[in-house]
């Protein structure tokens, strides 16, 4: 819990220490493992973050949140020039095979499809993300862009209204 609040306060290196301690105290905590990997990434410890999440995957092979968290890290790392995008996609897909309602994984796959102008896949994933998390602003924004690309201005306007009204 302390690590969670430290992450929220952007005290990322403190959060790394707190999650590390939590994992020492309870090595069976998948939550602490995901928290540590995420905090390490936010603290600029990319390689450590990937190693932590990979280790967590080995320990918790049926935990969808580990796949999802590793997917997010690999996606961000790919934006900075590393060749990890395909693996990120694979992580999101594996997460959804375990839990098909995860909004983050659906959103990221939808956003990647939208970027590649794969409208059909984008629509599938973004609508699934919207069903799981109806108030997520990002999903409404992405859907608005998608509908504009499809030449559906009324649907785009509706999603944009939802985007602007969501907190």
């Amino acid at each position, binding site marked *: 819990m302390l690590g969670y609040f430290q992450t929220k306060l952007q005290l990322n290196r*403190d959060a790394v220490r707190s999650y590390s301690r939590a994992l020492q105290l309870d090595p069976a905590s998948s939550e602490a493992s995901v928290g540590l990997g995420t905090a390490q990434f936010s603290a600029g410890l990319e390689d450590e973050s990937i190693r932590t999440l990979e280790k967590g995957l080995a320990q918790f092979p049926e935990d969808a949140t580990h796949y999802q968290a590793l997917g997010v890290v690999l996606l961000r790392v790919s*934006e900075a*020039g590393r060749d990890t995008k395909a693996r990120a996609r694979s992580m999101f897909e594996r997460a959804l095979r375990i839990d098909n309602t995860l909004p983050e994984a659906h959103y990221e796959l939808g*956003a990647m499809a939208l970027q590649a102008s794969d409208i059909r896949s984008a629509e599938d994933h973004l609508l699934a993300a919207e069903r799981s998390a109806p108030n997520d602003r*990002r999903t*409404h*924004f*992405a859907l608005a862009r998608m509908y504009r690309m499809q030449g559906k201005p009324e649907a785009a306007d509706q999603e944009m209204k939802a985007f602007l009204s969501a907190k």
Partner: protein
Amino acid sequence: MNWLALALYGAAAPAALFVDITTSSGISWHHSNGQSPDRYLVESTTGGAGFLDFDNDGLLDIFLVNGQGAQPVQCALYRNLGSGKFADVAHVAGIAEMPFYGMGIAAADYDNDGFTDFYVSGYPAGALFHNNGNGTFTNVTATAGVQNEGEWGASAAWFDYDRDGRLDLFVANYVQFSYSDKKHCLFGTQPTYCAQTEYQGSVSRLFHNNGDGTFSDVTASAGLATLVGRGLGVVAVDADGDGWPDLFVARDASPNLLLLNQHNGTFRDAGLEKEIAYNADGVARSGMGVDAGDLNGDGLPDFVVTNFDHEYHALYLSNPGGVYKEATVSSGLARLTRSYVGWGVKFVDFDNDGALDLLIANGHLHEQINMSNREVNYREPILLLKNDGTGRFRRVEIPGSPILGRGLATGDFDNDGFVDAVVMNLNDRPVLLHNSAASGGQSWLGIKLQGTRSNRDAIGARLTLRASNGSTTRWIVGGGSFLSSNDRRVVFGLGSAREVGVLEILWPDQMKQTVSNLKLNSYTTITEPAGDGGK
């Protein structure tokens, strides 16, 4: 080149493109933000610089804007003495002291009298200084009516939005701020600047030039009064190619604006529909500085916007009739800028190879930031990003220590055809960077435009150089960068070319002019011909 020479050439360490000549230039002035224990937000964003030739001697001078301190602080006007030497004449010129917290500068000849005037933005007001033509300036703010009273003015831009031949003034206002409304924030246990989202945004202002030394605040009638947000950077350029100047406003945790000129004194924000308002996740990034340039060679301006660390400095490529394509990742900008908080930014072909490069001032706000992220530091490098000719960038080192960069201005102060720069460094001396690429032997063409029916500075003109191997488009933009004012002259880098093509000028009043037989490796002044223009 023979093999021996090639081997020697290849073995030599590449010479730095920029050399820091601050000390030898005689610039000793220090910026001050008056940092207080209360960490007022206004202290975190100050520091503009401007290149302007205030005495018309053909050499660019430098104006440096100060913030505030425990003791009165002064701005500097460094007169260019030639040979890379400068001397501060701000006291003689009557512009050393500002009756407010200084932010930035926008220089232009707003009354078309042949002498460059300038506006200084700040909190809780700004000031307009008229150039008397004798080395001194007069504060004409009250008469002109451009006080921007009660506002925190950031970047400003001169441009002629109604094409009446007189330059109007846009001031990007930041947030609603007051010293009495103290906000206390901590980074760990240390006091730090509160996030910008703790403050309500403001309305930016548009002042119409009436041509008699006065201006009218036309913000409401122009349709801008409802666009509340945290404006920091602005560049004026014809974004959609319809012949009328538009505005790109970079805003901090507020959606960026693309204000398209409706040709009737009003503007329409197309930021959302053109997809420059938010990032792909629908997040309004921390837009600070902005500049325009034709990176993809389609004859329309593309835009670069500096942002916070891990947001990436963003690159938007034009796509006629469609939405802008964000090329932040594909250009390499995401990789090259993710650890930095960016401020001033300019598209300039620094090595005159024909491709626009980028120069970016960076510096963080939080002294303790490294406690949070190992990759992010308080002081950050000035980034020179060289374009490989395909729109992909790679970093070229600039010798020197990391700084707290803020404003950044570009200008060829030694008239060698290779554009130099000055970068503001919070609470420290600015950094004057001399471009030493002239020794590389690349060809160039320098153009200075002088309007007659159009505004005298020709802000808003489009220049297209046509050669056998293609065409290159440049604009004389209003504003650009962050809090800073730049050389109005346009330099076309020509690489190894030994001939100049044909120059097509589209003057701000839409008159077209074609000029040939231009001289390589020198500046040419072109005066707008008589005629009825495009009216």
